């Protein structure tokens, strides 16, 4: 059974259709990055998966209908929507008490161990913590929950680079066990691309690309072309050409390695570059 199974998932706000019929299947144990510009429908799609909004089409998360069974679904799903959502008046100890009191799969001792590695005091109010500390607290709560699916919607928004790095390191080292599924949306695609197993590009409410990272690596290649080879390289129909440090860098789709290697330095393109290349080709819009 797939962890997330969507078919024709559609969501309209009045006349504005934010999600236009998404088909998506996420298997257990994957780490999926949902990448797309603002207003592409990422957050709306996530809200539908978390039971926060009604939708049209078929959608099952862990075999459940999210809209009809949000409270049951949340026993197996965790999400961090934005760092600002922990209530400011709540004390750290109260947050632990509350989650322990309502969540059947919360391991309080584990959360306490994570908090001991931070400077967060139990009696502090959340409003008195820095933004980075609030994220650490939220992560400590989430990591102590034996969940099957973790959804992170811009989890590191507004954090400095050290906290962002630490956030993903902790997530991969202490949380991800190969069996859990993680779905991440972020503007900092370059920060997560090394941990992703799959990537889904969303643009204008539709899926523009849905691929595993391995498939991506074998299909797309970026070449810093020797100036002498440039004219020949261009005949191989690159999907994008840009200048990096005065040298043309061409992005190829489905061209064999043996053909590309003589042209110059070949490497795996970054997600952001790929996104820009694919989306400016298909829609003309820039990301």
């Amino acid at each position, binding site marked *: 059974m797939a962890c997330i199974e969507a078919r024709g998932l559609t969501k309209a706000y009045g006349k504005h259709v*934010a999600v236009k019929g998404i088909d998506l299947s996420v298997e257990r144990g994957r780490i999926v990055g949902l990448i797309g510009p603002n207003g592409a429908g990422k957050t709306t799609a996530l809200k539908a998966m978390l039971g926060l909004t009604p939708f049209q089409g078929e959608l099952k998360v862990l*075999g459940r209908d999210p809209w009809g069974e949000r*409270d049951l679904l949340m026993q197996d799903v965790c999400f961090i929507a934005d760092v600002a*959502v*922990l*209530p400011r008046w709540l004390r750290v100890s109260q947050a632990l008490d509350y989650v322990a*009191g309502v969540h059947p799969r919360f391991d309080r001792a584990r959360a306490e161990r994570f908090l001991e590695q931070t400077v967060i005091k139990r009696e502090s109010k959340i409003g008195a913590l820095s933004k980075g500390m609030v994220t650490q607290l939220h992560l400590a709560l989430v990591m102590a929950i034996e969940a099957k699916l973790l959804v992170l919607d811009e989890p590191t928004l507004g954090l400095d680079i050290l906290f962002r790095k630490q956030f993903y390191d902790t997530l991969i080292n202490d949380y991800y066990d190969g069996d859990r599924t993680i779905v991440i949306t972020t503007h900092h695609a370059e920060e997560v691309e090394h941990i992703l197993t799959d990537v889904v590009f969303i643009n204008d409410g539709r899926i523009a690309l849905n691929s595993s990272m391995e498939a991506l690596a074998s299909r797309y290649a970026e070449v810093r072309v020797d100036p002498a080879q440039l004219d020949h390289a261009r005949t191989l129909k690159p999907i994008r050409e840009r200048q990096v440090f005065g040298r043309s860098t061409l992005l190829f789709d489905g061209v064999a390695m043996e053909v590309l290697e003589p042209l110059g330095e070949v490497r795996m393109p970054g997600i952001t570059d790929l996104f820009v290349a694919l989306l400016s080709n298909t829609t003309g819009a820039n990301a």
Partner: protein
Amino acid sequence: MSTDVSTPLAAASPASGSAPSKPVRPFYWSLRRELWEHRSIYLAPGVVAALLLLALLIAALKLPASMASFDTFAPQQQLEIVSAPYAMVALVLMLTSMIVVLFYCLDALYGERRDRSALFWKSLPVSDWTTVLAKLAVPMLVVPAFLFVLISATQLIVLIGNVLLWMARGLSVSNLLLQLPLLDMPLGVAHFLITLAIWYAPIYAWLLLVSAWAQRSPVVWAIVPWVALVAFERLMLGTSRVLGWLRDRFFGSFDAAFTTRETIAETVERLQKPGADAANAIAHGSDHTPDVLRFLSNPNVWIGLVFAAVLITATVWLRRRQESQSS
């Protein structure tokens, strides 16, 4: 921790994982959470109770000389004089709580949307029904129970002070204890608190609905529709049924729950006669007797409860959809 055994049943159900589940009490913890956030629910009446006791202490020190002949007063007059502080304690504490609770209801669902913490609460396995009912339980259950304890405790302290004062003044303590309705007072307070909570249920439910719905200024949204309705009715139909209905809902619970020797209106009339004083008039209320049957046979009680149930259902509906607006 060796409960990690997969059974065929567990494997068949999509929700059950391998992790051991511990018992949870979502309703209880949702209630606790309300009291963590809204400490004024118990702090405000507590502070007022302390101030009342202080005021009564000062009043006792300045007791008029005429009180020395208390034992020779007529029994009815004795009752009115001695029970006045007890009635005042109950009424002032209830009034304080009522104001705090009305503001609580208006903020209960508005606050969590304003600071976006609703997203955190919704990330936990607690249903919208549980959340909304826990919020409704604050004015309906928690506050009446707390007020009963607070009022009884305050009255008990007043009673102890009263006995000490009587002993110091050489008045008959046994006569005092005989005159005070020691059993009827807590019964009357409990009856009043319970019937008031039921009578006010549609008011609480309306405020919760506004709190779940208003994008801003819930206070205004709570009041303006009713002002508009009253004005509309007056202008278009020349009647004031809505106003009468509102007045009955806000002030009619006492008359609905107690058999009275005189109605509130008559008490007010008596109060306005020369020579009457407020303490006596209020004390007079103590011989209003609790009447459960009178309350239960009042159709307005049941109409109010149905109205409240509809409003609460709408509130849950709104809370469920609150995240589906913004993108």
